[in-house]
C-alpha cells in the first residue's frame, strides 16, 4: 500500500481536526464532573515481519491511568511500562516497552461515542530503539449485560497518522478493542477486562507488516461530583484501559 497525495492531505486534515477538537474540549473538561484513577496489568504481544522474517514478542506490563469526565466528554491518560521477550525465548533480545496513551471520547448516545486517540510507544533493547507515534479517530459502542453493573464494549479506530522513528513508517493503522466492565453494587471499584489489537499497513516497498495486541485487566476507582460534593463510585463509565 503506497502513500498517495490524497492520503497525505487526509492525514493533514485529520491532525488539524484533532487539534481543534482538543482545544474546544479542554474548557469543558476543566469543569470536571468525575475523575477516575486506575491501575492495570496487561499482557502485550507484538508481532512484526521484516523482509519475510517474522518475530513475535510477549511479556507483561503495568501502569496507571487517570480519567476526567465532563458532560458528554471524557478524557483519559494512561502510562504503562514493562518488558517483552521473543517467542521462542532467545529469538530476539529482551526489550523494554513503554506506552503513553491519551484519549478523548464524546458520547453521542449512552451506547455510542466517537473517540480521538494519541499514543506513543517505545521499544528499547540491545538491538536498538524504536518509537511509534500514532494518532487516530474512531467509534465505540457499549451495552449493558442484563444489569447496569456489567457492560461490554467494542471500539474501532482508524490511525491515519503513524510515525516510526528511524524506520519506514506505516501508511496507516487500524485499531480495535473489545472488553467488559464490572462495577460491583455498592463498591467504588470497577474491574475492566479489555483486548486491544492494532494492525499497521506499510507500503509495498517496505516489505514489512506489524501487529500489536494487549489483554489488560484494570481496577479503577471513580469519584463524581453531585450537588457540589464529591462521592466515590465505580468507574463504569470511564474509558477502558489501554
Amino acid at each position, binding site marked *: 500500500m503506497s502513500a498517495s497525495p490524497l492520503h497525505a492531505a487526509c492525514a493533514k486534515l485529520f491532525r488539524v481536526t484533532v487539534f481543534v477538537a482538543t482545544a474546544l474540549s479542554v474548557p469543558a473538561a476543566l469543569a470536571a464532573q468525575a475523575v477516575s484513577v486506575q491501575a492495570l496489568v496487561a499482557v502485550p504481544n507484538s508481532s512484526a515481519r521484516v523482509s519475510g522474517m517474522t518475530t513475535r514478542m510477549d511479556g507483561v506490563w503495568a501502569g496507571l491511568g487517570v480519567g476526567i469526565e465532563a458532560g458528554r466528554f471524557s478524557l483519559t491518560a494512561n502510562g504503562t511500562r514493562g518488558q517483552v521477550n521473543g517467542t521462542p525465548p532467545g529469538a530476539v533480545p529482551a526489550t523494554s516497552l513503554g506506552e503513553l496513551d491519551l484519549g478523548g471520547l464524546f458520547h453521542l448516545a449512552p451506547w455510542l461515542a466517537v473517540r480521538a486517540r494519541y499514543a506513543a510507544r517505545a521499544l528499547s533493547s540491545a538491538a536498538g530503539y524504536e518509537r511509534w507515534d500514532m494518532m487516530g479517530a474512531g467509534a465505540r459502542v457499549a451495552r449493558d449485560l442484563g444489569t447496569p453493573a456489567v457492560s461490554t464494549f467494542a471500539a474501532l479506530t482508524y490511525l491515519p497518522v503513524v510515525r516510526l522513528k528511524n524506520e519506514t513508517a506505516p501508511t496507516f493503522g487500524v485499531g480495535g478493542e473489545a472488553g*467488559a466492565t464490572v462495577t460491583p453494587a455498592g463498591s467504588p471499584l470497577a474491574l475492566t477486562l479489555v*483486548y486491544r489489537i492494532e494492525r499497521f499497513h506499510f507500503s509495498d516497498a517496505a516489505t514489512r507488516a*506489524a501487529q500489536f*495486541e494487549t489483554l489488560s485487566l484494570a481496577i479503577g476507582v471513580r469519584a463524581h461530583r453531585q450537588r457540589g460534593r464529591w462521592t466515590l463510585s465505580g468507574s463504569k463509565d470511564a474509558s477502558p484501559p489501554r
Partner: protein
Amino acid sequence: MVRLSLRLVQPRPRDSLVATLLVDSIATARVPAALSQGGAWPTGEYAIIGEVAPSEPGSSDLLQLRVERLPVDTIPQKALRPAIFRPETLSGGPTRRTILEGLGLGVLALAVPVALNDRSLSGHSVPPAAWAIAGSVSVTSIALRRSSTPLPENVRYNEVARIQWQTENRVIAARNTAILRAAPFRLRATREP
C-alpha cells in the same frame, strides 16, 4: 388605661389586643394562652406589650414569652421488615432468546479482533485473548439475563402486607399527634429592660 397586646414574633411580628384595664397602681390581667379559633398557643416566641393610654414616650413595657412543649414519649413507627415479604418472581433458566443474544454479543466482541488480526503475523486465526473476551461476554450475558416468572399470589400477599404496614404506621402517627398535642407546655417569660 392600660392596653395589653399579644405580639407574635415568629414568623412575622403582628399585634393583637387581648385586654384593656383601668389601673390605679397595680392590676392583674388574665390572658388565656389559647387561640381565638381554639387550641393552645403553638410553641414559639411571643411578647406581651403593655401601653398606657394616651401613650407617651416611655409609657410602654414589653414582656417576652417563649412557649415550649415538654418532651413526651411517642410510639415508634414500625420498621418495614423485608423478611415478611415473599419473592414476587421465580428465577428460571435462560431462555433460548437469552442464549442466542448472549452468543450474538460474544460473536460481536470476537468480530473486531478477528477482522483486524493478521493470521500470518500473530500465528493464530483467532487470538486466544479474543476468545477469552468473547467467552466472558457470552457467559456473563446469559447468566445475568435469566428468565423470571411472576408469582401473582406472592405479589398480592406482599401488597396486603405493605398496606397493613402503612395502615399500622398511620394509626401510630395519629396517636403520636394526639400525644404531642396533649403534652404539657412551659411558659418562659423574660422582661425587656
